[in-house]
């Protein structure tokens, strides 16, 4: 910025300098105001969305009270309890994380620590390609191709573990192609790119001096990763994981297609379930009255959850970034 200013002033004055500076002052101020307005606009829209959805949901909050956390969702009998959906959101989110995080972190380590830069590039492209697949495509692939294929596997596992104490209640029958687990797998595919690329960036910030120090002390690559890279990037990776979770719990249409659409609280991961975004997408069209307010209210709860997860993620990333600058 300052270099440009100096160059301009040094240029021979074809235009009276005063006019130019006055003009630029106006442009600068205009730019400043426009940028500020753009920033504020986002904030204002967010606040307006929060206020209007909460207002539309108020009849649910007022008629149900703490009953909004009830366990029964039965629109024919005017029972609108959100717990089955919160449960489903948590379960699918956890399944997605359990599957996506180890893979993503390993890919990130592979890219930064193992393969040379020239080979890393194509791998990055391929992983990022996963992120550009629209979620409805994931959902359709999930319900038309993946679910019919995997339901036989579920059925086999289900009959094999049926009756065994813990495994039986987690993976036993009833099994269904569209289920918590299928939704979790699809979500895992969807969050892998974001977790990978954020982890990769965090891991890449580990100072070369530290790595070489570890090698100089005779450590193997694995010891170096465990002793130097991991402590350094822990916080950032946790942040990346939380951002992935934020995406997983908000993902709507893919989940709506493959989760099975049955509001249930069960330990059986292979059975049909429901989560918050999916029920809103599925049931909004024919809703009215308190039913519609309840769906709006689910939206508000979802909004709150995603904000909490995202704020936590940012906090974790910032803290680790600060610590690394300190190092």
């Amino acid at each position, binding site marked *: 910025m300052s270099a440009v200013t100096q160059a301009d002033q040094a240029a021979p004055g074809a235009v009276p300098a005063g006019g130019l500076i006055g003009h630029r002052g106006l442009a600068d101020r205009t730019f400043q105001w426009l940028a500020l307005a753009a920033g504020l606009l986002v904030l204002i829209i967010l606040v307006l969305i929060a206020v209007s959805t909460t207002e539309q949901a108020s009849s649910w909050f007022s008629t149900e009270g703490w009953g909004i956390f009830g366990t029964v969702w039965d629109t024919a009998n005017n029972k609108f309890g959100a717990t089955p959906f919160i449960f489903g959101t948590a379960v699918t989110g956890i399944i997605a994380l359990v599957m996506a995080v180890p893979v993503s972190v390993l890919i990130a380590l592979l890219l930064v620590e193992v393969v040379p830069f020239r080979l890393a590039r194509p791998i990055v492209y391929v992983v990022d390609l996963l992120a550009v697949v629209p979620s409805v495509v994931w959902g359709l692939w999930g319900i038309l191709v993946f679910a019919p294929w995997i339901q036989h596997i579920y059925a086999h596992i289900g009959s094999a573990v049926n009756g065994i104490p813990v495994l039986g209640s987690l993976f036993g029958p009833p099994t*269904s192609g569209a289920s918590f687990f299928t939704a979790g797998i699809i979500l895992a595919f969807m969050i892998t790119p974001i977790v990978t690329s954020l982890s990769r960036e965090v891991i890449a910030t580990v100072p070369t001096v530290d790595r070489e120090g570890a090698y100089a002390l005779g450590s193997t690559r694995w010891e170096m990763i465990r002793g130097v890279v991991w402590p350094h990037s822990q916080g950032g990776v946790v942040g990346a994981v939380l951002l992935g979770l934020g995406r997983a719990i908000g993902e709507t249409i893919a989940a709506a297609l493959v989760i099975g659409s*049955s509001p249930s609280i069960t330990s059986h991961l292979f059975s049909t379930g429901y989560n918050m975004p999916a029920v809103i997408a*599925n049931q909004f069209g*024919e809703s009215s009255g308190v039913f519609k307010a309840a769906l709006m209210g689910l939206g508000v709860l979802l909004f709150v959850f995603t904000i909490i997860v995202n704020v936590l993620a940012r906090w974790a990333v910032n803290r680790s970034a600060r610590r690394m600058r300190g190092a």
Partner: protein
Amino acid sequence: MQRRRIQRVAAVGLAAALATFAAACSSSGGSGSSSSSGSGSSALSGTLNASGSTFQLPFQQAVIQAFKSVQPGMTVNYGGGGSGKGRSDLASGVVQFAGSDSPIPSDEVANFKGKKVLYFPVFLGPITMSYNLSGVSNLKLTPALIADIFQGKITKWNDPAIKSVNPGAKLPSTPITLAVRSDSSGTTANFSLFLMTAAKNWKLGSSSTINWPKTAHAGNGNGGVAQVIKSTPGAIGYVDYADAKASGLTYASVQNSAGQFVAPSPAAASAAGSTVTLKPDLTFAAVWQSSSSAYPITYQSWDLVYQKQSSTNTTKMLKAYIGYLLGDGQKLLTTLGYAPLPSNILSKAKAQLSQIGS
């Protein structure tokens, strides 16, 4: 100097844009250029927007296509989205008419702020009990059986209760898989209304979504349920007739209130329509009718229009389009798998056209 000219051009452009915007706002999407006037057969131009019932969607699309040759200057858009969305769009003034499979429920009446809504019945349609059982082609079901199956009380196809109604059929021991709607739906609302009316043992109520047994498999839309039935041996589900036919599904005959087992067909649905109790506002329920040839799970759909219209052009367009829908449009119904309205309802609906805009 140069800059000043640019500013002036920009100012003129902005003014023009604002003027266009203001004009677009004031015409509220309903009217285009209110050109020639006179009888309904004169050329109209402008746009009608509508949304709602997905049950109506294929029919509306076909009618819109055919209507182009009658009024080339008019554009009609029918977006689906569900009956509930149609009604709330109409209430908030986003659309000029709405498709709905149910009359306005009591908790929504306040949204219309006391303005009178006219119901135009459009057609009838059977909801099939489609199933996937190889070797069983002529299944018979009673309302009580359907209720027990969809409440998860009967879980195997060779259950004695099903056998006693189908003495000749070779029923396998396959477990029954329920195929239901994952989205809220007018089909679900009318199917559960049928069970409420016809089966005393039905406990799950009537609504656009039902708290089905946990083992039910859900599909999105009639097509999604048809897909579940097709891919799952032992499945049974409720699918509207047009989609069931399009997917090549097998469907059961259902016992009606006269004790007859009737297979779903447009004719059997029209028979159900002939005996309905028509209320003064032209609402009715076509399920569980008394005629011996009536298919018992028959439902209906309406187009909802405000009686008062702010623009005369919109009034003319609504009269022209809905008039066509109830006139020549009815001829398109049977090929699409819907049932035309009986003549007494149709003539009352046509007579009501004159009330639009009055």
